[in-house]
Each structure stands twice: as C-alpha cells, then as structure tokens.
C-alpha cells in the first residue's frame, strides 16, 4: 500500500523522469557548440590568412616585376644611351669637325666602330639624296637599296632636329653573303656636312644590333614563371615579345596598343579571356614602353599550393580541436551525466544517494536534489501517514457510533428496568438512546451543528447516568450563541467516555464526581471543554495524551482523544484540535478548539466536499 502511494505521488510530481528525455545530451550539445565555434574560427582564420597571403603575394609579385623591370629599363636605357653617345660623337666630334673628304674622318669613324662593334652593326653617313658617303665596316652597298624610301631615312629627313630610333628590321643596305639578313634598330639623325666649301645636309645612321635588345629582354623572360615582358613603341608596335612570331602571324594577340597609351603604372586588362596585371614603364629617349604582364593564373597557381596548405592546416587544426573539445565536453558534462544517472538510479530505487561530486555548482545541485528528494520522501510519508490516520479515525468514529458493548449494556439496563416495572425510566432511556443513535448517524454527515453535538452528549450522559446509578453529576454550560456553529460530529462523546472511564466512573455518589461540558466563543474560535474532577493524570500521561507513538504509556488507550484531535486538524487545519490540562487527584480538563463557522446546509456540503477532495488526493 505504501509503495503504491509512493509510485502514484512520484508519477504525479515527476512524470518526465519515468521515460527518456528526447533530444541531444549535454555532452553532444557542448560538443556541437564548441565544434561550431571551432569551425567558424578556423574557417575565418583560414580565409583571413588566405586573403592576407594572396594580397602579400600579389604585392610581392608586382614588386618583383617592378624591380626586374627597373633593372631592365636601366639596361635598355644604357644600350640606347650608348647608341646616342656614338651618334653624338660621330656628329659633333667628327662630322661637324672634319670635312667629309678628310681621310681622318674615315679613320676616326673606323676606330669608333671598332670600340663599339659588339653592339653596333654599322655606322653610315648618307647625303640628303641617299648616296652613301662612308660606312663602317666598309661593305659593298647593295645595288639599289632605295635608301631614301627606307623609314629611318625618311624619319631623319622629315624631323631634322631629332634623333630617331626605328623599329627592329632587317638591314637592307650592304651585301653580306655570310650573314645576309641582320636585324637592327636604326638610330638616324639629320647632320650638317662640310664638303669642301659647300655645306650640305646628310643623314647619319647608327645601326644597333637588335640582338642586344633581344638578349636583355630574353634574360628577364627566361624563368619568368608564367609572367612575361615585352617592349613596344609609343604606337603599340612590338619591338620585342617572347611570342613575337606567333603575334605577327596572328596566332596570338597582345594588348600593346592599349598599353602604349598608358603612363607608367599598373593596369588591369584582359587578353584571351585571361585577366592580368600589366605594369608599364617608359624607356627614356625613345618613348618605348616596357610592359610586364602578370596573368592572374600565375598568382592563382601560387595561391593554389597555399590553398592546399591552408586546407591541410585547417583540417589538422579542426581534428585537434575536435579532440580537445570532446575532452573538455566530457570533463564538463561528466559530473552532470553522473548526477543524471544517479537521479535515474535514485528514481529507480537502485541507490539511496544522489551524486554530489565535480565542480562546486554540481555538488550544490546534487545536494539540493538530494535534500529535495528527502523532503519529498518525508512529505510523502507524512501524507501516507495522515491518510492512514484519517482512515483509522473514521473507523474509530464509526466504532464510536455503534459501540456494541455500549449498546448491549444500555439495552440490558432497559430490560432490567422493564422487568423491574420502571417503565417510565425505561421509556426515557429508550428515548435517549434513540436520539443518540439519530445524531450518531446524522444521515451520514460528518459536519453537524454544535447544538446537535451537545444534545448527543446529553443523551449519552443521560444513558450513562442511569447505568452508573447517578454516581456522578453532569451539566452543560453552553453559551447559547455557539450552538448554531459547526463542528465535526462526535468530538465530545469520546472525551466524555474517557472522563467517565478514567475520571469519575469509579467514584462513589458521596465523592461528588462531576463532569461539566462548557462551550464559549473565544475570539474567532469556539472552545468546548470537558472537565471532570476525577483521578486526573500525571504529567507524563498528559504529555503522551496526544502522541501518536503507540509505544508510549497513555491514559487508557488514548485512541479516542487522538482521533478527535486528528479529525479536527484534518478538516480545519493545524491550529485547531485538542488541548488538555490535568492534575492527579484534581481532575482533567480537555478543550476542543474549533473555528467559528456558522452551520448551514450549504456550509456543511462545502466542508464535506473539501474533506472528500483531501481524501482523494491523499
């Protein structure tokens, strides 16, 4: 029975504990949260690192390109400056100083050519009609090279104040079977000639070996690792390009025209659907543009390797962090899980204690849960006890209502009265018994008016007076006003029974035994007292009178008093019930404390419903 009540109460208060709670466990949730944070942080760091690296790489690549181009520009400018210096030397130191027929001019020109032959293919002086005046080295001129129609001559003749660098071309001036087609860049200028007394103009031509330019450009294009560099003039015509032949044949294209229009700097352009960075630098003296091209795929190729590195590092980092996360999650969640398991075990009745280990918070939680459970247990026991007590009380009340021994004695007394011819007394006793039974039954009601309770007492005491042959007196001093208030039925009768049995029942008529029932209003409560001047109780008996411990010695069984006390408290609360005062050989006074509730049918029903609900809940 007790287990049944435990189960019912637990089920009512902790229904979710009986089954598995759905969803993720705390460890999984901690793990997921930490994993999400780990991934977000790792990915963010990876992206930032990648972005930073790509920018640095781009910057570094462009810086490399820039510094390489600076050196190349210096080299190219050096070569071109050498050509200009040769041209200037020939012009100012030889042609303007010497007559064209002066053999010294040819001799000096030969010496100059010899000193510069590594980079100079030929130096030639032409009249303004295109006739060859002199040249170094001395080679036979082709039959009809048509000099005046060649671009370098026309440039010099049209803009006499400037020096002109031509595009690379095959020299078409001299016969040379062993090396017939020499690629040169021509530096031409108009010069003033002294031919005897007749001044005239001519064109000085210094043909620079294109191989020198090509060599410089090839040097930076070798091992350029996807980047490349080209040279064009200010009209976008290519002077050197690593894919010169393909471009001239239309197999490839180049944005040289676009780049030739740009001032020095970096530009984004697109060629063959390929985005790229193009760096432009201008060569002094010529207006040529050195262009360095860094296609995006070159940078992407470097980035690709770094991307794999980032992914590898990121993967390793996530692996390690997941491992650490799991360890931390386990460490954090283990006490909680242990607490959870111990609660489950406690609920299942497997262990008497709740786990209280781990961190201070978990320990506190464990102890709190333990305490709560103990209190719940205590309360449940109390409730069960109260329920049992209530049932006992009801049983006792029922027994009080129909006390067979009392009934037998009463009826036996009536029989003797009738046989003894005391018919009036017999009739009066029967009437009192009838009234006693009627009030005891009270149509099954638990709550009755104080008036009925007093009348029930009077009937009871009337019968007992006859039975005890008036060896004691009985009187009621009840304030009239309290008779219309409510009480639990049959609270006085057990007290009177006790007063007779243990108080005045054994006294002689001369001893003046007396039982007085008093009733009065005291504040907001009603006090009913049963007072006798019988044997009284010792202090110990008085202390144990209301104890539920059955082992302690009591005045009689004590059951009747406790039943009355419990029934009152059950219905009206803990502040009500019974108090007792007694002195040995002086008598006993038992006081019943009740709330002042006016009796009516409606109140009665309400109080009885309340009692019923309490009984069901318990």
């Amino acid at each position, binding site marked *: 029975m007790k287990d049944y009540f435990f189960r019912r109460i637990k089920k009512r208060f902790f229904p979710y504990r009986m089954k598995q709670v759905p969803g993720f466990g705390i460890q*999984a949730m901690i793990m997921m949260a930490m994993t999400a944070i780990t991934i977000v942080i790792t990915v963010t760091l990876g992206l930032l690192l990648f972005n930073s690296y790509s920018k640095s790489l781009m910057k570094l690549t462009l810086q490399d390109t820039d510094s390489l181009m600076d050196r190349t520009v210096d080299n190219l400018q050096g070569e071109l400056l050498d050509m200009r210096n040769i041209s200037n030397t020939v012009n100012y130191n030889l042609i303007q100083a010497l007559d064209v027929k002066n053999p010294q001019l040819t001799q000096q020109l030969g010496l100059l050519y010899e000193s510069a032959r590594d980079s100079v293919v030929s130096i030639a002086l032409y009249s303004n009609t295109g006739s060859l005046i002199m040249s170094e080295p001395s080679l036979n001129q082709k039959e009809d090279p048509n000099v005046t129609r060649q671009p370098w001559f026309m440039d010099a003749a049209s803009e006499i104040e400037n020096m002109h660098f031509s595009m690379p071309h095959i020299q078409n001036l001299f016969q040379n079977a062993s090396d017939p087609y020499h690629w040169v860049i021509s530096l031409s200028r108009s010069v003033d000639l002294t031919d005897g007394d007749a001044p005239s103009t001519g064109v000085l031509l210094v043909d620079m070996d294109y191989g020198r330019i090509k060599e410089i450009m090839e040097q930076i294009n070798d091992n350029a690792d996807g980047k490349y560099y080209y040279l064009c003039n200010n009209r976008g015509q290519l002077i050197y390009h690593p894919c010169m032949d393909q471009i001239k044949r239309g197999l490839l294209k180049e944005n040289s025209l676009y780049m030739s229009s740009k001032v020095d700097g970096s530009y984004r352009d697109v060629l063959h659907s390929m985005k790229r960075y193009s760096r432009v630098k201008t060569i002094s003296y010529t207006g040529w543009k050195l262009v360095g091209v860094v296609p995006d795929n070159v940078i992407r190729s470097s980035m690709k390797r770094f991307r794999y590195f980032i992914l590898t590092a990121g993967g390793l980092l996530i692996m390690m962090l997941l491992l650490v996360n799991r360890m931390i999650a386990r460490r954090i969640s283990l006490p909680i899980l242990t607490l959870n398991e111990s609660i489950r075990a406690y609920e299942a009745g497997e262990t008497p204690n709740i786990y209280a280990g781990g961190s201070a918070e978990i320990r506190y939680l464990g102890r709190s849960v333990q305490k709560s459970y103990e209190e719940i247990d205590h309360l449940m026991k109390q409730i069960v006890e109260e329920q049992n007590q209530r049932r006992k009380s009801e049983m006792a009340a029922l027994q009080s209502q129909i006390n067979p021994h009392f009934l037998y004695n009463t009826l036996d007394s009536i029989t003797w009265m009738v046989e003894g011819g005391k018919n009036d007394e017999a009739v009066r006793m029967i009437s009192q018994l009838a009234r006693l039974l009627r009030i005891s039954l009270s149509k099954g009601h638990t709550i009755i008016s104080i008036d009925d309770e007093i009348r029930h007492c009077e009937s009871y005491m009337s019968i007992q007076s006859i039975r005890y042959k008036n060896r004691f007196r009985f009187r009621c001093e009840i304030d009239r006003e309290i008779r219309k208030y409510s009480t639990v039925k049959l609270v006085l009768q057990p007290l009177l029974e006790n007063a007779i049995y243990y108080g005045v029942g054994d006294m002689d008529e001369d001893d003046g035994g007396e039982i007085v029932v008093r009733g009065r209003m005291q504040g907001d409560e009603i006090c009913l007292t049963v007072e006798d001047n019988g044997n009284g109780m010792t202090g110990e008996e008085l202390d144990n009178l209301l104890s539920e411990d059955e082992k302690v010695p009591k005045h009689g069984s004590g059951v009747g008093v406790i039943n009355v006390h419990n029934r009152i408290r059950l219905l009206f609360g803990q502040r009500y019930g019974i108090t007792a005062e007694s002195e040995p050989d002086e008598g006993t006074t038992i006081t019943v404390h009740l709330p002042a509730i006016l009796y009516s049918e409606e109140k009665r029903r309400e109080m009885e419903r309340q009692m019923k609900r309490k009984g069901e809940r318990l």
Partner: protein
Amino acid sequence: MEKPSRAIFITVELILAIFTATMAVKISTDEIPQRKVAVIVEDSGNSKWDSYVKGLKDAAKANNLHLVICNTDKGLNPEEEKELMEEQESKGVSGFILQQAQGSGGQVILDSFHEPILLNFCRLTDPPMKKTYPLIAPDNEKLGEKLGECIVEGYNGKLEGRRVGVVCAASSPKVMMQRQKGLQRVLEKAGGKIAWTLYREDDTGISDAVRSRSGVSAIAVLDTESLEEMADAAAAHDVHGAVVYGIGASIKTVYSLENESIAGLVTADLYDMGYRSVTAMAQYLSGSKKALKDQSIEIISPKKNELFSEKYQTFLATMER
C-alpha cells in the same frame, strides 16, 4: 547516447584525416606533368629546319609540352626511325610527329606503335589503307604548280616551245613526284615542256650533271638543297644561261633570290607547319580526338622587291637561327 556520439566523432575525425592527407599530398603533387612529344625528321640539324623547329618549339611552349627533337642524319630509313621511336616510347613520350622515312615497310612500322602519330611533309602511303595517319604539310602538287606559275610569269606567260629542266632530290621520290606532277601540269598548259629530270644524290651533288645538259631555258629545282647548289651554279654562270627557279626553305635560297642567282622562289611556311603540328598534338592529348586531321600549309612565293616588306620580314625572322 554515448556510443552513437563516439561513432560520429570517430567518423568525423576519419573524414578529416582523409581530407587532410589528400590536401597534404596535393601540395607536393600539384604540378601538372608535362607530356612529351617526340619529333623525328631526317637530318635534324640542317638549317632548312630552322623555321620548322622554331614553330615546333613556340607551340610546345604555348601548350606546355615537352618537345624531344631526335638527333638524326641524312638518309633516315624506316628501321632507324623505328629504333628512335622505340627509344622515345620507352622514355614515355605521349605522341610522335614524324617525317615518314623513305623505304619499304614504313607503314607497318608505324602501325606497331600505340601512341598517336602525326606526319609532316608527306604521307608515303596513300589511302585507302588499313590505317591512315594525319598529315600536316604543304600540298606538294600545289608547290609544283606554284613553281610552274612562277616560271610562266618569268616569261610573261610566253612559254610556248620552251624547254625546262627539272632537278630534284633522289632521297624523296614520292614528294618529288608530286611536285613534278603539279609543275608539269602548269608548264604543259602554258606550252612548255620538261626536257629532262635529274635526281640529286646527297653525296655527289647535281652541278656536274646539270653542266652536262644544255638546251633548256629554265631549270626548275624541287628541293631546298638542290636549289642552294643550283643557285651557286647560277651565280657562277655554270648553267648554260638557263634561269633557275626553285622550291626552297632556307635563308640561302632567299638570299639567292635577292641577289638574283635565282629568278623565282616558292616556299612553304614551315614555321606554321611545326606550330600547327604541335598544337594539334597537344589538343589531341588533351582529349580533343578530332584535332589530329589533315591540314594544308600556306605556300608563298616572295618577289625580290617584296623581301623587306613586313610580311616577308616576319617570314625571314623565323628562318634565322
């Protein structure tokens, strides 16, 4: 909850480990390996291939191919060609670009290789046959025709009754025959007539044989080396007054045109042939199976006064070493 959670954890860690290992391997194996293509032409060091080799190399660079130009001498025969191919095959080449060697059994030899083969210059066995190899080359008959037109033009179209001598290389009979066929068709149409045909052996030359022949107005030379020799003979006035025209692809032949040792030159753009060949092979190796197909190379006939124009300067630039 513990067991499934542990299983998920181990699975995730395993996936991450595999992913990380894959990425780590990729760091070291990111480089795309260059495919190798072997090129076999007779007398590979000859300057007549300069333009062709430049075309090959430029295309190989543009297509990220590793080019292996096999070292060969004159008179390459099918057996030697096979040995070279086997050697290159053992070195892991992905394809061959060949000048098919003269001699019997050439077709059978090529059939024994699994790598793709692209022919240059000529195909010695005409279809229909069991297996046809794609050819990228100038049309030899058209070369002959162009040379014929050059001769006819040199005589202002008045070739009636004129006799023309023909000099060609003995080492390439098939090619020479095709060129001569085209030449003969044009000459006969213009009223000319081929008086004789001489075959030049590499070791003996042809000057003596030509010197012993006379009575021709013009000599049509069908290959580069013969043309260089005949240009020298013409410069030395050793051709009985005949005017030399020829098919050639070297700087010397161009220079001979410029100094009028020869009156007309027909040539093919060998740079273009080399470039196209490697490009087609690269495309084929990249998965474009239709890339290897017959292609014809442009034929040009420069005039002396045009030699220094931009067009021919580009052409000359590729001829130079």
